[in-house]
């Protein structure tokens, strides 16, 4: 029988577009200290450290070595995972494996990115296997632009719906002290008049580049119950890889290949007895690089029926006071320190389950929440978090 594992401490930085006042290790240290303070633990209580970061965004080979003093990893086991947008949950998954197996009883999971260091889009472009996908230098933006155009065509959603998602995200972000972009948007018109970046994506339709770090402390059951009165249990973790980039197509546009989100979520729900997603799960923090993507992801994660993702925002279901809040933190479109982004998704779900999300605490009582991450050629990682097992 595998050990039960819970999140017992959560810490994150105030995500910003630029952090000239700190270097990478100093940025990471802010999140590490915050998580230790939250759990009322010392670094000596942490047995291993698992890190999530993409080397090419900061241009540092072996960033985990650079931060080994500031993240407490010095003379302790652990490793770094670089798996694009899924890294934060991929590293959490590894930490969970080690604790489940009884190798360690405590671990820290750290995601970080300091995107003011280099050109993120240029770095992402190298994800296309360079002997094959070269010459399509659009990073993530081009792929999400095509997905948005396709979603518009298939689902009947309009740019007004996308703008409603963006407005909701900003309203949430303005209530979250850690969020990066807090624009104070007043109406959908504010979004609709922002300039096009790559059609049909407008500047405000896409996520920013953020500097930020997030740390989670996890512990096995006996320890967890001693550390905190409010452990947040990691009920399950699923990840599914898509076939690698073919022609640079981010998804299978004619429906021949299943979406990794679909496979991952169906597996997660089945394994955990979830038969009615919006009843059995109380909220979600998903990796939505664009507002269009949020509507699409709601469908492939089965939060709603196909082609109805835009109806969820139209009916006001996904806001902080809604019946099924999606990204009450403001989401990725408000803050995107890539290596930390999925870690933040888990942290935010944990805070909501604990009732500690403060000014952006959702109205619905959150007993179960799902955090998701998306990376590379549409692969998916999902975590189910619960108040009690």
């Amino acid at each position: 029988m595998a050990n039960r594992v819970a999140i017992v401490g959560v810490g994150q930085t105030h995500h910003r577009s630029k952090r000239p006042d700190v270097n990478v290790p100093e940025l990471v240290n802010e999140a590490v200290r915050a998580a230790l303070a939250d759990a009322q633990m010392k670094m000596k209580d942490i047995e291993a450290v698992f890190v999530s970061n993409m080397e090419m965004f900061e241009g540092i080979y072996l960033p985990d070595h650079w931060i080994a003093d500031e993240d407490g990893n010095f003379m302790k086991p652990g490793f770094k995972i670089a798996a694009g947008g899924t890294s934060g949950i991929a590293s959490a998954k590894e930490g969970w494996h080690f604790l489940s197996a009884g190798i360690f009883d405590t671990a820290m999971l750290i995601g970080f990115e300091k995107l003011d260091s280099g050109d993120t889009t240029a770095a992402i472009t190298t994800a296309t296997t360079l002997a094959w996908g070269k010459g399509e230098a659009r990073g993530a933006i081009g792929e999400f632009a095509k997905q948005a155009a396709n979603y518009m065509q298939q689902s009947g959603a309009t740019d007004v719906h996308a703008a409603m998602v963006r407005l909701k995200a900003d309203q949430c972000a303005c209530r979250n002290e850690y969020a990066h972009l807090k624009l104070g948007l007043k109406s959908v018109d504010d979004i609709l008049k922002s300039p096009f970046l790559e059609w049909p994506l407008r500047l405000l339709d896409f996520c920013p580049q953020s500097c930020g770090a997030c740390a989670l402390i996890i512990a096995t059951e006996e320890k967890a119950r001693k550390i905190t009165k409010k452990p947040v249990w990691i009920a399950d973790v699923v990840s599914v890889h898509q076939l690698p980039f073919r022609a640079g197509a981010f998804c299978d546009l004619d429906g021949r290949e299943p979406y990794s989100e679909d496979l991952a979520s169906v597996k997660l729900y089945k394994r955990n007895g979830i038969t009615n997603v919006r009843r059995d799960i109380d909220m979600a923090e998903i990796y939505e690089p664009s507002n269009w993507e949020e509507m699409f992801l709601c469908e492939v994660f089965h939060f709603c029926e196909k082609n109805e993702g835009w109806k969820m925002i139209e009916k006001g279901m996904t806001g902080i006071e809604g019946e099924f809040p999606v990204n009450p933190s403001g989401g990725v479109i408000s803050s995107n320190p890539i290596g930390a982004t999925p870690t933040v998704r888990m942290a935010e779900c944990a805070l909501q389950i604990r009732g500690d999300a403060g000014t952006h605490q959702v109205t619905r009582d959150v007993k179960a929440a799902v955090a998701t991450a998306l990376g590379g050629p549409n692969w998916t990682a999902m975590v189910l978090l619960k108040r009690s097992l």
Partner: protein
Amino acid sequence: MAEKPSQEYVFVSYKLPLPYRWAAGKYLSKLYKEMRDHKKLVTNRCPQCRQLIWPPEMVCGRCKVRAGDEWVELSDKGKVVGYTYMVVPLWDPHKGMRVPEEHPYATILLDDGMYVVSRLEEKDKSKLKVGMRVQAVWKEEGRGHGLDEDILYFRTIG
């Protein structure tokens, strides 16, 4: 909490010229040479599921078996399944500069069932639509270094 700038912060700038040279490998090389020398698209077929693999490679990801050397010539015609066009030029690390684009680009589903991403000849945005039929226009002198090196763009057909 981000500190208010109360002092001069030091930045260390660094340009990193890292030239790379990738081996295309046995399977991609075959495709690239066919494109360069005969203006043809080719790929290999999985001996188990009989599906065409794209791009050609040594393992069928679905069946997890060696894909072998049963080569098939592909049509260079297809239909647009998704498109976009860049409004703000992005940094292209392969070229080391921001590259404005004249042509929209699209994901194209070839008639034999594989995707390619390429530019479209049609610049009039109002004439772009999903489902439009297109065919590759080949460069006169291909270099054999990849799809975009040898295919100029896709032209709207009938």
